[in-house]
């Protein structure tokens, strides 16, 4: 068997929108930045959909968890986005300083998925909360994460709320070069003295794979990235059970 290539990421992009899942993603990204000696790049996208909604004459927001309705207008939406952007920046700054890593922060405006895809061009790894704000999709993985999982060319790390990277690591090897890279990344990210468990399969989207991985009880699963709803379904199950999923291409 060929030696697995090492996993490197000079710049880690973390998209944050101040949701709890995105803050967990930030923590994981900062920890990874330390491990890999990377620069942390924070990204906050001012959601165009929200601004469009705010411009409508009947724009109402239903608050959670109270359920009250509240009218919004473009001005108040702008103020709110700026405030959230500032919070996101603070969070990135604090995390970077705590872990003593290089950092930068960027705010862009547009559709979130598109902006993340665009920003990922200049990154080596994208870290995302599995479901944050934006347009919710069915299941545990949000629209942005789905889009990233399917279309980003760099490795993508998805974390549900509460997930972390401190425990066991499982790698899935489907015999492709991506599978080999997945094993390499898993080795690098595993804790010292605790080598990753490698699950060999021809089809990472095969039903039952998620169960096999879940049963091993890892905190991180490294998979060769695939596409198609079956594959996304498998990833979704892993994410939903609290496992961080790193998709390697």
């Amino acid at each position, binding site marked *: 068997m060929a030696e697995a290539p090492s996993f490197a990421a000079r710049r880690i992009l973390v998209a944050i929108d101040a949701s709890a899942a995105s803050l967990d993603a930030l923590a994981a990204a900062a920890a990874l930045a330390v491990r890999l000696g990377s620069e942390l790049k924070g990204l906050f996208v001012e959601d165009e959909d929200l601004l*469009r909604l705010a*411009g409508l004459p009947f724009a*109402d927001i*239903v*608050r*959670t968890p109270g359920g009250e309705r509240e009218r919004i207008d473009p001005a108040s939406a702008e103020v709110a986005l700026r405030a959230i952007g500032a919070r996101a920046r603070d969070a990135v700054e604090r995390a970077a300083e705590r872990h003593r890593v290089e950092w930068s922060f960027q705010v862009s405006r547009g559709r979130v998925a598109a902006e993340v895809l665009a920003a990922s061009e200049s990154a080596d790894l994208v870290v995302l909360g599995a479901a944050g704000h934006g347009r919710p999709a069915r299941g545990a993985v949000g629209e942005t994460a789905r889009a990233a999982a399917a279309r980003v060319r760099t490795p993508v790390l998805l974390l549900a709320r509460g997930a972390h990277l401190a425990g066991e690591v499982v790698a899935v090897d489907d015999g492709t070069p991506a599978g080999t890279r997945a094993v390499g990344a898993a080795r690098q990210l595993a804790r010292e003295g605790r080598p990753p468990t490698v699950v060999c399969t021809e089809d990472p989207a095969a039903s039952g794979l998620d169960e096999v991985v879940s049963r091993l009880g890892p905190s991180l699963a490294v998979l060769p990235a695939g596409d198609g709803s079956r594959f996304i379904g498998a990833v979704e199950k892993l994410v939903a059970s609290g496992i961080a999923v790193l998709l390697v291409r």
Partner: protein
Amino acid sequence: MPAAPLPPDRLRGRRLAAELEFETTAELEDLDGPIGQSRASEALGLAIALRHDGYNAYVMGPPGVGKHALVKQTLERAGNEAETPSDWCYLNDFADPRRPKAVELPPGRASGLRADMERLIEELRVAFPAAFESADYRTRVQLLEKEVEEGRERAIEDVRHAAEAKGVALLRTPMGLGLAPLKDGEVLDPEHFRALAAEEQERFQRDIAELQAKLQEAIRAMPELQRRHRERVKQLNREVALSAAGHLLEEVRRRYADLPEVLAHLDAVQQDVVDNVHEFLAGSDEDGDAATQIRKLLAQVPALHRYGVNVMIDHAGRKGAPVVYEDLPTLANLVGRVEHHAHFGALVTDFTLVRPGALHRANGGYLVLDARKLLGQAFAWDELKRALRAREIRVESLEKLVGFQGTSTLDPRPIPLDLKVVLVGDRLVWHLLSALDPDFPQLFKVEADFEDVVPRSPEAERDFARLVATLARRAGLRAFARGAVERVLHEASRLAEDSTRITTDVGAIRDLLQEADHHAEQGGHAAVSAADVGAAVDAVERRAGRVRERMLEELVRGTLVVETRGSCVGQVNGLSVVPIGRRPFGRPSRITARVRLGRGEVVDIEREVALGGPVHSKGVLILAGYLGGRYCRDRPLTLAATLVFEQSYSGVEGDSASSAELYALLSAIAEVPLRQSLAVTGSVDQLGRIQAVGGVNPKIEGFFDLCRARGLSGEEGVLVPAANVPHLVLRDDVVAAAAEGRFRIIPFETVDEGIELLTGMPPGAADAEGRFPEDSFNGRVAARLEAMAARARAFAVRDAQEPAHG
């Protein structure tokens, strides 16, 4: 015939009974208890025997009579035969932690329960984390969480579905959830929206309003969803906790199956443990950052403590009822206290900080307290009474009693009280309590009154010898020879001021024995001799004798005038006692009287200048009664007399000099001189009978010391009331002088007997008409009074014949 001096053998107590044979006290057995205190002993026995309310005892008597020793001995004996009382402990009341539960346990089992509960908690601390870290438990929790998560998502999902169907997007924004119209999968911006046909705009608005209502409904249902989830997790936790704790608790339950109260408590513990299982899962001390550690510390203090057992009293190893003596009866030492400890700057407490007091320790037995110490402590007496009345021990802090409460505190449930309290004190306190405290007679119905003295019978002498033996042995002294015991007995009678009695002041006897032993040691004697005892007594006299010696010196030098030779009209030697410290001494004083024509009053100069006490004044007034009744029954007493204690500057009290004053007065009236070599003591009644007085021994010895200092001629002596003869326990030197005929102690019963001794004249008895022989002393008194009456009449006639000039 004048009264004769007393023979020497009547001047001191008799010798030790001949049948009491021993060489030294080493041969004698210990005395079991004090001498002659059967009255007090019986009273104590009654207090012990009667279990009814209020039969507590007050043991009273002077210091040193062995009150504490008798009380201790009697109570310990009774305690040994009594049942061992129950143990008591405080347990947390989970329903009301401010009011800990008092639980009774059979003797010796409280500490066992404490140990069992401590072990149980230790085991639970291991068992719970094991159960809650098991894969089985985790899976069940994850399932529940997944269910609730899915429920939440489903609710939003349904709205999203409905929205999608109507071409509306559900947006999750940082501000909440929004619904926006879609066109070609994109959210419409306002411009495009306005470009839509009016009907379509309206449709969107209507649909969105409907969807918003749905969304609101879904969101508002979420807290309920969450609550149900929490309930289910809680229920799961309870199940897991019960299965982990059940068998451990069952083991403890089996051990206390006979004690329903403990079983009920264990049920409550089980309930609480299961409800608060998270407290056992706090993790190890190394876990977490500083903030977590502090949170843990803050949480821990009250947490697992509350399953503990606070033992108030455990009688393990005891057989019988306790006898407790509380030397410092403060409120807290009596009823216990609730302690606090500082926890992050605040004073906090819980039921484990309730501390027992003497009442807890003595419950079921006997508590001995010093009355004066008890009364000197704030609130102690009141709380003791309250406890006895209510028959319960309530732990009350001082600050609570005075209504000053600065910190959170407890109100522990009272413990039933069943004990006998024995107060030990002096008679004054007993009298004051009886007079001033209406509760006292109700609560202390038995008084055990110790005798100050006991009659000197052969049995008492034998007991006394055994007492000397016992005290000597206990104090590690030499044995006392028979003669030494006799000498100690003599001192014991002197302390009792009665040759037929012995003092019960064991403390004073013990002191004398210790000092005599010291002299024996210095003399190199194997056993303490009579001479050693005598030396000890002399040493005491010398130590205490500075004032006495100075006074004697001034008498001898003539600064204080007391004549002991020759005769003098209207002047007699009276005797008084100077009560200084523990060794009062006698002092002779010159009493003088002057008479003149007057209206029948005898003026007490001491009273006029407020130097005489009421009893002294009473004695002087009796003299006027005597004079009138004896000499002037059918005519007015027309004299005015003045009486005074010469050179007395510090007050006179008592009537023991009233006979001496009478002699001075009669001498002044009859103008017959009195012998100054004799001193007189004794009070007199209106009929002329001489009555007993106190302090007769020091009085005689005081006059003897003065006469001896001036040289004894054989004329000197003291007239003492015949009723005082049994009280004579005189010093050896006085008895020796009497034996040699150099000093006389003469008993007298009537005024006339004294007249003859003091004047050498026959007193003269009245005939049927009340007239005395002319050449008798009384005849001269009567004649002088009659002459004065005649003069008075002559003055009265002259005053009547000379009309007053206006």
